[in-house]
């Protein structure tokens, strides 16, 4: 008797389940973890904001196009991972097994992608990564994870060397943060420079909690290199910007890796940023892209005139566009989405993207320069909206 009752109720539940998705009003549940608190909290908004802009843009259109069979709105399920990879693992397990989300989107940063890779693999949930960059990502088993970023350290090294060469740079000073992405860049940059015959006249690494660069920069000034390459994160980028001016570093090419593409940074330094080269491959006016202007305007509207982070927010939005287009082709069947991501070519604000294995195989690593207060893509040349110019004297 009990068993029969149980079977009957199971059947009913099953039928309800079948009925469920066909109701047009049901939103698509997409889950992700966000670093709201902890070490990466300051970076978190650049990701979350882009997700929110994408959600609004999609929902304003009437929702996600589900494989050509009508539209469904997007609903987010998000939790704070406290910048802790293990917490991110738990969140994705919860999203998938207990919240029963339809799809998942990426968490913040390289380490979290590594952490959750086994989870999405195990549950066969496709995930388009963003904000993760490391050559080690290529060791992730191809299958359910793809990485949108063009900023792989080996590609960056190649492009950086090419750019320096095109500018006739003969000597460089290198400074870098000990953290993963920065130091990994150096791993590839040094051999590339050596091969191109560019001399490294000064090299120094520093811990993430550095408070002063005067000593280091005084030594750099003494070497008088053609280019100064600072592989820094926002906090140390600010140190460089202030103290390089004090010490009077006047190299014609000055590269500050992470920071200048973020809005607050430009607010802090204004015209002093002119001529600084940074890591970014996008600007609202970038040609041959899909939705750049719309994204830029929607972002500014949603966040009271603040600009998106030209590096991270952009990459996050690209990953969302890819997911959106894959769903438009394959519907919500995750296996079909996977095949779609593997085979399709996507139109994004980065331009066309196609994956080869886990990696974005089209978008090249690139650099932008702040020119008259605006961010212009300056490298590689075929994508550039402007060409690299010499950094003039510091404004003030």
């Amino acid at each position, binding site marked *: 008797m009990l068993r029969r009752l149980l079977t009957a109720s199971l059947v009913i539940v099953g039928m309800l389940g079948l009925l469920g998705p066909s109701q047009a009003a049901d939103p698509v549940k997409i889950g992700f973890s966000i670093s709201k*608190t*902890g*070490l990466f909290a300051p970076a978190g908004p650049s990701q979350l904001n882009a997700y929110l802009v994408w959600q609004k843009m999609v929902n304003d259109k009437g929702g996600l196009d589900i494989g050509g069979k009508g539209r469904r709105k997007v609903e987010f399920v*998000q*939790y*704070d991972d*406290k910048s*802790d*990879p*293990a917490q991110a*693992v*738990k969140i994705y*397990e*919860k999203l998938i*097994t*207990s919240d029963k989300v339809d799809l998942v989107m990426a968490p913040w940063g*390289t*380490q979290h992608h*590594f*952490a*959750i*890779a*086994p989870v999405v693999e195990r549950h066969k949930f496709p995930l388009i990564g963003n904000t993760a960059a*490391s050559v*080690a990502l290529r*060791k*992730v088993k191809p299958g359910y994870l793809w990485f949108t970023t063009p900023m792989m350290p080996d590609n960056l090294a190649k492009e950086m060397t090419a750019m320096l060469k095109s500018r006739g740079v003969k000597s460089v000073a290198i400074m870098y943060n*000990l*953290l*993963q992405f920065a*130091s*990994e860049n*150096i*791993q590839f940059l040094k051999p590339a420079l050596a091969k191109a015959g560019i001399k490294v006249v000064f090299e120094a*690494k520093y*811990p*993430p909690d550095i408070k002063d660069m005067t000593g280091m920069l005084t030594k750099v000034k003494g070497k008088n290199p053609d280019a100064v390459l600072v592989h820094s994160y926002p906090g140390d980028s600010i140190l460089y910007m202030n103290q390089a001016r004090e010490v009077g570093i006047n190299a014609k090419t000055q590269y500050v890796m992470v920071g200048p593409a973020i809005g607050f940074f430009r607010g802090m330094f204004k015209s002093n940023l002119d001529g600084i080269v940074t890591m970014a491959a996008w600007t609202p006016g970038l040609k041959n892209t899909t939705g750049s202007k719309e994204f830029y305007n929607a972002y500014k509207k949603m966040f009271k005139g603040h600009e998106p982070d030209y590096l991270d927010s952009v990459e996050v939005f690209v990953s969302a566009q890819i997911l959106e287009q894959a769903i438009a082709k394959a519907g919500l069947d995750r296996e079909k989405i996977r095949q779609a991501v593997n085979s399709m070519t996507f139109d994004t604000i980065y331009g066309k993207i196609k994956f080869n294995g886990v990696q974005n195989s089209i978008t090249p690593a690139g650099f932008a320069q702040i020119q008259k207060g605006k961010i212009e893509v300056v490298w590689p040349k075929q994508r550039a909206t402007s060409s690299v110019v010499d950094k003039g004297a510091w404004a003030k």
Partner: protein
Amino acid sequence: MNNSLRLIGTAAVIVILASLSGLASEYMLGIGFTLFMYIALAQSWIILSGMTGYISLGHVVFFGSGAYVFVLLWGLVPVWLGVAISGLVVGIGALMIGYPVLRVRGPYFVILSFGLAELVKNLVLINEARMYMSLRPVFGAPPLAQLYIAMLVLAVVATALTYWIRRSRFGAGLRSIREDEWAAETIGVPASRLKLIAFALSGLIPAMVGAIFIMRSGIFQPGDAFNPIVSFTIVTMAIIGGSDDAAGPLLGVAFLVILQELLWANWPEIYMIILGVLLIGFVLFAPGGILGWCSKNLSRSKKNAA
């Protein structure tokens, strides 16, 4: 009679918890893993700080060092052997640095322990950056069910160890050091030696916990592995539990982990704030921790009943 009953009960609970590894959902196992992890860590903390009064604000140094040793061995030795070696190496390391470190007392020791963790973190960071290995993925870790069991074992061992030490001659010595180190030496307690042993024991299990933890997180990064928040969490859990006995951490950890699970799942936006408010409330209204509060209120109600 009473004792053997208690023993059987404990064994039964452990067996049930272990058998959950095959039954419970992944999410539940994940919670169990966190629970056991912090039980093992908080119990280890009690062995040093609860018993001797040398409050360590840098216990993550053992956790992170264990994780580092383990990740260096990853792929070179069998997984569980690697875990054991990590514990051993860190335990020996603790013995070597323990003597000078434990000469420093009171608030000086509190900050010293924190500084030690930061020092080791930065040394590891420099070393890793030198090899361009600032981030090491751990591919092919054992499934969660196995990690869950391993963490359960560590939690049980740590709890048993604390329970035993609390009732042993060794523990009596440690506790007299906490109360008055000078007077303890006067009655013949070899304080330096006992503190050193406690320090090493207190580091052994967290090192193994750290090793297992990075199989769960799938990644080793010095900044994560030596995150000071871990130290703070351990201290918080142990103090909220109250007392220098094994029951304290069990209560404190269970309370905080379950609370966190309830809060972050249901109030993702403000759970940290609620958590903070609760912490403050605890200090103000139950300064003896859960155990202290229970014993006070239970004895009061007993008195009222009588």
